[in-house]
C-alpha cells in the first residue's frame, strides 16, 4: 500500500501488517451467529468517560491531549496484553487505514477525521475497542454478533472498572459521569442494536415503526451511526436518554422493543413469501445475478443488492452462499477494504471496476461455470 506519509519506521510497518491481516479477517459483529441473527446483526454498547483533571476535547491543548492519551494508555495496558490488542496511534495512520477501521466499526468517523493526539486500543478478536481523545477522553465500546446485551455490557463494564482503578473520572453526585456533550451525561451509555430489515423496507412499513420508536425516546440510525444513511437496509436502534435511568433500565428499554421489531420483520417476510413469492424470488435472483456478473458497481448498489441476497439466504431462496461469506462481502466491498485487499489506492471509477471483479470472483467460485480469477478483466 502506498503511503504519502514520511518514511515509516518499523512499528508503523508492523501496524500496517496488523491492519492488513485485520482487513482479511471476519469481525465479531459480522459473524452472523448469536440469537436472532437472521435479523439482528449485532449488539454494541459504549460508555463515555472523561478524566476529571483535564478540559474536554474542545478546550484541551496539544499537551493536555498527549497527557490524557498517556494516562489512559498506561491504565489500559495494565490490563491488556499486547498479544490481545492492537494499539493504533491515529496521527500515524494514513487516510486509507483510518477509513478501514471506520468500515469495521472499530473506531468512529469522528476519531478518524479528528486532529491531534488520539488513539485506539483494538481487541484483535474485535469484541471491544477503546478510543482515546474522541469527543470524550475515553470511549469504551464492546460488540457481539446477534442480540447479546448481557455479554456486551459485562465487557464494557469490566473495562470501565479496570481503567477506573488508575484514573479519576469526572463524576458528579447529581449528574453522574460528566461528558463533553450534555446528551451523554449521567450514565454515558449508548446501547445500540443493529437490525437488518429488508422486508419492512420493501413493504414500506419502516417509517411507521421509526415514528413509534421516536415516541419512546429511541433513536434510529444507519449502518455507520450518526447522520449516516440506512445503507443495505441496516438500521441501528439506540437509546437517547442517558440521565435518570440506570444502565440496566436503559438496556431493558432497548431490549424490550427489539422482539416486536423482529416480529414485524418476520411477518413482513412471511407475507411476501405467501402472497408475492414469484416477485420476491425474482427480485432476489436478479440481485444475485447482477452481483455475479456486473463489470462495474458502486458501493451503494452493492449494499442494496447484498441486502436482498441476505434475505434470500434466510428464506431459503438462495443456497449457493452462506451468511458468514455474505457478511464478509458487505465489509470487503467497502472502499477502504477493497483498496487494502487490492493492495493499491484506487479512484472511484477503478474502485467500482475492482468491486465488480471482486464480487464475480467470490460469488462464482462454487458455481464452476467461471474461473476463480474472474474471467474478463478487460471490463
Amino acid at each position: 500500500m502506498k503511503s504519502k506519509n514520511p518514511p515509516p519506521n518499523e512499528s508503523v510497518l508492523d501496524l500496517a501488517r496488523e491492519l492488513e491481516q485485520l482487513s482479511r479477517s471476519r469481525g465479531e459483529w459480522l459473524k452472523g451467529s448469536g440469537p436472532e441473527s437472521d435479523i439482528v446483526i449485532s449488539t454494541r454498547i459504549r460508555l463515555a468517560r472523561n478524566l476529571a483533571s483535564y478540559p474536554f476535547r474542545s478546550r484541551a491543548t496539544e499537551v493536555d491531549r498527549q497527557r490524557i492519551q498517556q494516562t489512559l494508555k498506561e491504565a489500559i495496558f495494565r490490563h491488556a496484553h499486547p498479544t490481545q490488542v492492537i494499539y493504533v496511534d491515529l496521527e500515524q495512520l494514513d487516510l486509507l487505514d483510518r477509513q478501514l477501521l471506520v468500515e469495521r466499526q472499530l473506531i468512529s468517523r469522528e476519531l478518524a477525521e479528528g486532529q491531534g493526539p488520539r488513539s485506539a486500543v483494538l481487541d484483535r478478536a474485535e469484541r471491544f475497542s477503546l478510543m482515546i481523545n474522541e469527543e470524550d477522553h475515553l470511549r469504551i465500546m464492546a460488540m457481539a454478533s446477534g442480540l447479546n446485551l448481557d455479554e456486551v455490557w459485562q465487557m464494557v463494564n469490566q473495562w470501565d472498572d479496570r481503567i477506573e482503578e488508575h484514573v479519576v473520572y469526572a463524576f458528579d453526585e447529581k449528574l453522574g459521569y460528566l461528558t463533553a456533550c450534555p446528551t451523554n451525561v449521567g450514565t454515558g451509555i449508548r446501547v445500540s442494536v443493529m437490525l437488518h430489515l429488508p422486508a419492512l423496507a420493501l413493504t414500506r412499513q419502516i417509517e411507521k415503526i421509526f415514528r413509534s420508536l421516536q415516541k419512546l425516546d429511541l433513536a434510529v440510525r444507519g449502518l455507520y451511526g450518526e447522520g449516516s444513511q440506512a445503507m443495505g437496509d441496516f438500521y441501528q436502534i439506540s437509546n437517547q436518554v442517558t440521565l435518570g435511568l440506570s444502565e440496566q433500565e436503559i438496556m431493558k428499554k432497548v431490549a424490550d422493543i427489539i422482539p416486536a421489531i423482529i416480529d414485524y420483520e418476520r411477518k413482513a417476510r412471511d407475507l411476501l413469501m405467501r402472497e408475492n413469492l414469484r416477485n420476491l424470488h425474482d427480485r432476489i435472483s436478479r440481485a444475485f445475478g447482477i452481483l455475479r456478473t456486473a463489470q462495474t458497481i458502486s458501493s451503494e448498489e452493492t449494499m442494496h443488492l447484498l441486502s436482498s441476497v441476505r434475505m434470500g439466504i434466510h428464506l431459503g431462496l438462495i443456497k449457493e452462499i452462506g451468511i458468514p461469506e455474505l457478511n464478509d462481502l458487505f465489509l470487503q466491498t467497502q472502499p477502504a477494504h477493497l483498496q487494502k485487499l487490492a493492495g493499491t489506492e484506487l479512484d472511484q471509477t477503478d474502485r467500482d471496476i475492482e468491486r465488480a471483479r471482486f464480487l464475480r470472483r467470490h460469488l462464482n467460485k462454487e458455481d464452476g461455470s467461471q474461473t476463480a480469477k474472474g474471467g474478463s478483466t478487460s471490463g
Partner: protein
Amino acid sequence: MMRCQRCDKPATFHITELTGGKPVELHLCEDHAREYLMQAGNEPASAGSMAAVLAQQMAKQLALSQTAEELAELDQQLCPYCGISFYDFRSQGRLGCPYDYVVFEKELQPLLLNIHGETQHKGKRPTHSAELSRKHTELIRYRRQLQEAIQEENYELASRLRDKIREIEESSSE
C-alpha cells in the same frame, strides 16, 4: 416597540442564530419564533452529529426565554476553569470542562430536562468519590494559572501553584 420581522405583531422573541458563518439577529413574534424553531429542527444534520444539532436546538429554545440583554450578559459569563463562555457552548454544542456543569448549572438545567426528562443520575458510580473528582477538576484552573504566572514571570506564584498541583495529583486514587 420592535416589530416582528415577519409580521406586524410585537417582537417578543430575540434569537441569535449561530449555526451559519456569522451570528444573525432575529426578532420575531411568538408564532413566527415557533415556526422558525420548527424549521430549524427539520433541517438535516449536515455537519457534526445529531447530538450537536440537538444540543444547539435545545440551547436555542433556552435562548427564547431570555431577553436580548439577559442573553448577551449570559453569553459573556466565563468558566473560571476552562475559559469557555456560554456563547461558545451555544454555538458548538460542546462544553469545555467538567466545571461548566457547575458554572452554567442554571442554564443547563432546562436543557437536560428537555433531553433526558430527568436531572438526577441513577446507576453506576465510580469507586472514588465525587469529591475527589471535583478536586481533580480544580487542576484545570491551577494549570492555567500556572501558565499565566510563568508568562508574567511571577515565579513565587508559580511555585505555590506547582505545590498545589502536586498535592492534588498525589491525592489520586492510585
